[in-house]
């Protein structure tokens, strides 16, 4: 079946098998491998992308369910000139990654969380990231980074 979606601003049209999951579509058909497959059971959040601006687990959606949607992956966050998104920059500044495997999903979940909660506090960040697991257990710095990004963004650093 034909599927059409915009990924990071570029329109893609492909013939896909109905059972193709969105994460494999992004990685293997579009070729954007920044989105990771972690647990493969809707738990870990490593595959989180934005669908029309909201965080979703791309391992738990068919590519066909994203037909007509606007998808943003980790590759689509930084500016074309390479300037990092405030959430990416805050992860870098706060050493919010160790092995880095969960990072793309954490960053995408954080972008969605900050959009939904302009007045983030620490408890909201911790609860809001419950769908993302970091097996290095680097949660403290991740929470610090998300709070730092939220305050940078509310102070007007362009997103």
């Amino acid at each position, binding site marked *: 079946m034909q599927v059409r979606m915009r990924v990071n601003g570029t329109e893609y049209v492909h013939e896909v098998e*109905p059972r193709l*999951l969105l994460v494999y579509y992004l990685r293997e058909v579009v070729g954007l491998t920044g989105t990771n497959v972690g647990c493969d059971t*809707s738990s870990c959040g490593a595959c989180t992308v934005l669908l029309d601006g909201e965080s979703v687990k791309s391992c*738990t959606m068919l590519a066909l369910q994203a*037909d007509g949607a606007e998808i943003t992956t980790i590759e689509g966050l930084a500016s074309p000139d390479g300037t990092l998104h405030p959430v990416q920059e805050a992860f870098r500044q706060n050493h919010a990654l160790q092995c880095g495997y969960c990072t793309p999903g954490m960053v995408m979940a954080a972008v969605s969380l900050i959009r939904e909660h302009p007045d983030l506090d620490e408890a909201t960040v911790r609860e809001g990231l419950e769908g993302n697991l970091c097996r290095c257990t680097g949660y403290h710095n991740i929470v610090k980074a998300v709070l730092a990004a939220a305050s940078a963004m509310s102070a007007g650093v362009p997103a």
Partner: protein
Amino acid sequence: MIPAAFDYQRASTLDEALSILADRGEDAKLLAGGHSLLPLMRLRLATPAVLVDIGGLRDLSYVQDRGDEVAIGALTRHRDLQISELLLNQVPVLAHVAGQVGDPQVRHRGTIGGSLAHGDPASDLPAAILALDGTLCARGTSGERTIPATEFFTGFLETALRPDEVLTEIRVPKSPGKFSFKKFNRRAQDWAIVGVVALSDSPARVALVNMASTPVRASATEAALAAGAAANEAAQRASEGLEPPSDTNATTEFRRHLATVLVRRALEEVGL
């Protein structure tokens, strides 16, 4: 893990979905947000021959004031329930419970109709709708019917819905009184090992998550409360008449214990 192959049909109207179901009936499954069905398909615990995608029927996504009741379109997502002003004011328990389902990513995709039609006793929303004495509206090729929540859940992952029917709307009485939702689990985003929804509205109602093969009301506790029992005494009867499951997370006996403790806490929280 890749689901077994299936035919994919996208319905652009409810009538189109009904006609596909009429045609393919038993072989077909409806796909809404997919957050109950797709995980099962990936484990190949479900292998439907046909998936009918109704996720695009946006006219089935709403929360409306209907006088004494609030009507909710079956395709309303958990996130939209969580932030609905109408629910927060008139049925706050439902907004709260919706906000405890899974995690934010799940709540962005999962729908109330999908959660109810899936009929998982470990899910949160079915217990809330049971406690609220809600009504479910189903449309089939032969017309529409309403099913009381108390008659909707018929077995493990089984409901009163017929193969040719689509769950279209859920109606709940306005219940602005006190409520409590207790969910016991070991990991942040997990299903409840045991959950409790308690409402203080008269008569007081208590529903249990994961304490039987279906979502259930704690009838013995409710009867005790109606007869004037105190919270602690009523809570002792939480699992009376129930056969809670035994699994990796908890034995039957531990679930009975959890239900007693959580029901007592929930009743105390709503001031009973």
